[in-house]
């Protein structure tokens, strides 16, 4: 049941992580509930098709050459095109073709979350916050997103405020070790950041892809690249605990009343 403010909460385990739904402004509850069920099935479907951990997923079979792109779900082509765009934009720092396989995980979760939020929006939900394992797509608001401090578990490094669509993606080794590699060396980035958060109103697909690419670049290159990207801001914590942000990031941070 939505509470008196018309809010619905739901958590769902999929893709090896947990998705947290926070939906506000629920007026037509049956419609929003139906959209929530559809969004949940969608996430599981994305996992079936795109999981690189499932040998029988379409993406795994496509990567091994056992399946033609034409025989895959249409969404596979869509995601690979997005990946190709991310690769072009980042000058090859984002790549799906590392070590011979086919791995779109650098943006597929962000894309899945963004699509799920779209489904909820179409059902008439006034405001949606969907967090997929630490990457967040917002709609409506106002929302306050704490950015985890990678060096002090349980504490926050900063808070992003949003009213309207915003994708917030964070990359870093704090939870699962260094799983983003420098595509040129196959090793973790030389000057790896403790965490890198990318925000963009263009949505979580791009926030996720850019956070992945920029993390692979290492600190110095990432900062210059993100600063130059239009409509995109970033906040980083270095391995030494220092912080930096792109010049427009402060527009997304919580107001200080002074």
């Amino acid at each position: 049941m939505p509470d008196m403010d018309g809010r619905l909460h739901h958590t769902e385990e999929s893709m090896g992580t947990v998705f947290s739904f926070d939906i506000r402004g629920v007026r037509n509850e049956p419609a929003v509930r139906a959209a929530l069920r559809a969004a949940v099935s969608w996430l599981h479907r994305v996992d079936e098709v795109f999981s690189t951990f499932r040998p029988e997923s379409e993406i795994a079979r496509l990567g091994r050459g056992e399946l033609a792109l034409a025989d895959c779900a249409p969404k596979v082509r869509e995601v690979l095109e997005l990946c190709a765009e991310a690769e072009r934009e980042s000058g090859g720092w984002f790549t799906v073709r590392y070590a011979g396989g086919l791995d779109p995980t650098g943006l597929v979760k962000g894309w899945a979350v963004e699509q799920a939020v779209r489904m909820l929006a179409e059902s008439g939900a006034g405001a949606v916050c969907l967090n997929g394992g630490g990457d967040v797509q917002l709609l409506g608001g106002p929302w306050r997103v704490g950015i985890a401090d990678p060096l002090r578990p349980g504490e926050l490094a900063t808070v992003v405020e949003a009213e309207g669509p915003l994708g917030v993606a964070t990359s870093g080794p704090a939870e699962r070790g260094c799983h983003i590699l420098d595509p040129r060396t196959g090793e973790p980035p030389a000057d790896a950041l403790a965490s890198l958060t990318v925000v963009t109103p263009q949505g979580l697909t791009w926030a996720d892809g850019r956070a992945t690419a920029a993390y692979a670049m290492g600190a110095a290159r990432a900062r210059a690249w993100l600063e130059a990207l239009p409509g995109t801001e970033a906040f980083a914590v270095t391995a030494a605990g220092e912080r930096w942000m792109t010049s427009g990031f402060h527009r997304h941070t919580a107001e200080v009343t002074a």
Partner: protein
Amino acid sequence: MKRRHPFRRIMVGVAATATGVVLLLALKQPGGSSVAGATARGDAGVLPAASAPAASAQASAPASAPGRASGSDAAGTAAGSGGAGARTVVGDAVDTQYGPVQVRITVSGGRITAAEAVKAPDSDAQSQSVTANAVPRLNQSAVAAQNARIDTVSGASYTSEGYRNSLQSALDKAGV
């Protein structure tokens, strides 16, 4: 040629942070309630996990500024400055075991846009590093003091296992 003392620089950074916290706690909100008041509400609220950063930010002020009798009686001095809507606020000097530290911040559009150490134990080589750390740290402190309510947490991708110990899990359980 000055030798650099990494540990001392760190301590200055910590002292600057403490100053910022003290200073920010003294800033008044439009309604008359202080930022410290907002923290107190957070501590008493329904989000114990989310209010933890606020508590630790406050605790760090007296801990790292032992020369100070009380963290809550600092009076920031507001002064008009150039930009439209921008103003600078100078905190009280805080005595640390390394000497007095004083921070000046510029607030524009409700956000801290600049911070500089106007007084630091070794004001040449170290002030740059203090300043470099001060803006985000001050923002962080301000945020910690105010963020009793966050809706969600973004961080490095957690596994289903990692989720169980996460701040996000606590928020989901709280269901607010």
